[in-house]
Each structure stands twice: as structure tokens, then as C-alpha cells.
């Protein structure tokens, strides 16, 4: 069965400016979504990522890898996490992505080798 990666878009600024209480409230529906879909086996794997201020990027410069601070593209929105799901087709994948209680989601097929 085809697999798709759902990439969850995150606004770091918003998450980092919340109180502990409101963070808890914001996380609750997201965690519930993960729990449910892991249990049903739809989500094969996935992780939440730390904010992009923690990112380190290695850039190929003249053949050598140079270590630099920051994400590969600086933006207000970044990848906040991902899930690998296994469903029959794009319509099913879109239906799963629509049920995500957070922000924007990108859906891309996984290349099967």
C-alpha cells in the first residue's frame, strides 16, 4: 500500500510565546490525533521536531561540508513534525491530513524502491 509523508507546518513564534497552560491546551488535540492514528495503525512513524532555532545546517561549499547555524531556509513557518502514513491513494491521504487539528499540512508520496 502506498505511503505518504504528512509534513506539519509550525509557526515557531507562536509556540514559543505561549504560557505553559495554553501550550497544554494546544497540545491536547494534537496528542489525541497521534494516539488515535498510531493505535489504528494508519500512522507508521513520525516525530515532532524541536523549533528551527535549534537547527544546524551543513552546506556543501567547494566540495566540503561547512557547518552553519540555522535551518536551510529561514522562514516564519517551518517543519514542526512529520508522520508517515499508509493509505490506498491520495484521496485517503488528504482525508487523514484534513483531520489534523493543527496548522497547514503538506502531503507527499513516499518513493518506494
Amino acid at each position, binding site marked *: 500500500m502506498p505511503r505518504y509523508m504528512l509534513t506539519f507546518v509550525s509557526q515557531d513564534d507562536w509556540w514559543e510565546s505561549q504560557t505553559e497552560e495554553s501550550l497544554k491546551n494546544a497540545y491536547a488535540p494534537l496528542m489525541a490525533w497521534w494516539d488515535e492514528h498510531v493505535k489504528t495503525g494508519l500512522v507508521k512513524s513520525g516525530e515532532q521536531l524541536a523549533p528551527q532555532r535549534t537547527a544546524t545546517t551543513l552546506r556543501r561549499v567547494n566540495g566540503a561540508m561547512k557547518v552553519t547555524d540555522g535551518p536551510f531556509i529561514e522562514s516564519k513557518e517551518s517543519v514542526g513534525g512529520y508522520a508517515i502514513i499508509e493509505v*490506498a*491513494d*491520495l484521496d485517503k491521504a488528504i482525508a487523514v491530513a484534513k483531520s489534523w487539528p493543527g496548522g497547514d499540512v503538506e502531503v507527499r508520496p513516499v518513493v518506494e524502491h
Partner: protein
Amino acid sequence: MRSLGDFDVAEEAVQDSLVAALEHWPRDGIPDQPGAWLMTTARRKGIDRLRRETRYREKVAQLEDDYRGASPPEDPPEGPMPDERLELIFTCCHPALAREAQLALTLRSVAGLTTAEIARAFLQSESTIAQRLVRAKRKIVDAKIPFRVPEGHELPDRVSEVLAVLYLMFNEGYLATGARGAMDRDLAAEAEWLTSLLTRLMPDEPEALGLLALMRFDLARADARFDSEGEIVLLRDQDRSKWDRKMIDDTFLLVGRFLRTRSPGTYQLQALIAGAHADAKSWETTRWPEILRSYDSLLAFGDTPVVRLNRAIALWHVKGPQTALDEVDAQSGDLAGYHLFHATRAELLRALGRTADARAADERALALTENPAERALLARRLARQSR
């Protein structure tokens, strides 16, 4: 469920089956469901006119006559071909494809236009369209866009996506902007044909009927929209004897069909408005209060500046030009760059006797449109005022 990635195969099957039907029916006899057999894309083999509804019927009738005259076939063809056009339409108009790709793909795969014909219709090079089609088909295959009619709760959204594609296609043809010239009725006729196909494949879909009625009311007036010099004639000034009465009357049967479903929608409401115009003996005797009520219902579906602008004309005839002008002016923040905003203002200002302001508004409208026929109309109007 159908195997994935079969889009090309399905498209070919749909196209080839028509050719096959035409070659085999006279010899082997008509299958039980000729309608389900007949595929849309005869054009590929030069059977160009077949896709037109009337010709389609003539052809079916002719084939049936041939059949009646012939002896019963020894070896009847296998059961009726599955009609895959509906799946094809939904796949071509999948929301995961860009709008321009949806348009090109629908014209190519469902209506059977050649890449060259699509390129002409959109004033693009053939290679641009070819590339667009290849990319869209690759996405269908790689992202596994399913070849099926959406089910249950998905269906309403997907139907409106299909209708949006067909409506855009129609308007591209009917209102064509830019260098292509004012009229490109072929694309409009294509859209009308596709919509009528959709209403046959989904007879219980009131918005599809609404869109078809809207298109037909517009097409029925098409011959009066331009004068002998190719210049636009506004609805108000049109020679209503040039309207296609038969088409208008037939279209009211469609209106009756969607009204009976009692599930209103935006296309049905627009069809009611177009119908009220088509039914009026003159601009003055138009049933404006009824049109205004339809616009009010449209606002309930989506309160947009463009709907308010169009509604202002009805408002003018029901409540006077000043009320209408106030309403139009309230949209200036959103519509200042839209030529019809200024053209509408100009009309209302003229009705209020503010000729200098009207002239300025017409000049603004002229500066904002590239459509040659619209430019000619505005230029004529300005010339008349300066006399």
C-alpha cells in the same frame, strides 16, 4: 477499486471506444445502451461534430436506422462498455491539480480536444500545454490520485470543484479577455457540452443543472451580444428578437428540474437571475424585485464584492440610483482595480445626472481593461458624452 496509475489507459479507452463504436455499430448492431457506449472524443479521427448534442442524437438515430435495416448480428458485441467518463471528469478536476491543469486535462481527456486546440483556446504555445498535460498526468500517477467518483461526504466538495472548472472554462470562452478577441464561443460550447454530460451522468445534482441552465441562458443571448461591427451590445440595448427563444424555453424546463429538488445553490440562483433577464420583454419590464431577491440569496451563500457589484444594478431599478451608488462605492476598497466597478459607477452617476463624474469613471474603466470589445464600448460611450 480500480488499479492505480491507470489514467492514461482509461483516457485512451474512452477515446478509442467511440471510434470503435462508429466502425462497428453499423456492422454489428447497436448495443443495449448506446449512450453508455458512445465516448466523447471522435475528433481524433476527424469525426469532429459528433460531440455536439444535436449531432450526437442524429448520429445515434442514424446508427439505429442502419441497425433496423440490417439483419441481426451473428456475433453481438460483449456487454455494454462501462462508462468511465464520470471517473475521468473527477480525476481531471481533482483539487490536488492546479486549476490550469484541470482545465487543460478536462478539455483533452473528456472533451477530446487536441493539444493544439487547447493551446489556441488559451493563447498558449502548444509545447506549454503539452508540458502542462504531461506534468498533470505524472502527478496523477506519482501521487496516486484515484480514478473514481468520490463517495459520501467527499462528494459535495468535489462536485463543486468540477463545476468551478466548467464555469471557468465557459467564462473563458464567453467573456474571453485580451488579444484573443471578445468571443471564443468554441470554448463556451465545449463547457456547455461537458456540463450537459455531467447532468446526464449525475441527474440528481441540482447545482450541475443550475450551471447548465446558466450557461444556456447566456448562450441563448449570444447572437445579440455583438453588433455587425463586432462591438459589444449591453443587455439593456440588445435586440431581443435575436435571442434564441426555443433555447430559453427549453432551459426553463431545467430550472423546473432544479427547483423541484429544493436545495438551492449559487449556480441555481445565478440561473434564476439569467432566466429572469431572458424572460423579460424589455430592460424596463424586467422583474427587478425578483432578481434582487435572488441576489440577496446569493449573498447568503457568500458575501463578496463582485456579487454586491452585480446586485447594485438590480438595486438601482428597485430602490433608485443613489442607493445603488452608495452600495457600489462601499466596495471601492476591494474593486478599485476592476474595470466593471468603474463602468457600473459610470452608469449610476449618469443616471444621477453627474456627467463629469461619469466620464471620469468610464475613463478609469477604459484604462483597466484589455478586452477589445469592452474597450470599444467604453470608447463609444465616452465619445457620445463629449458631443
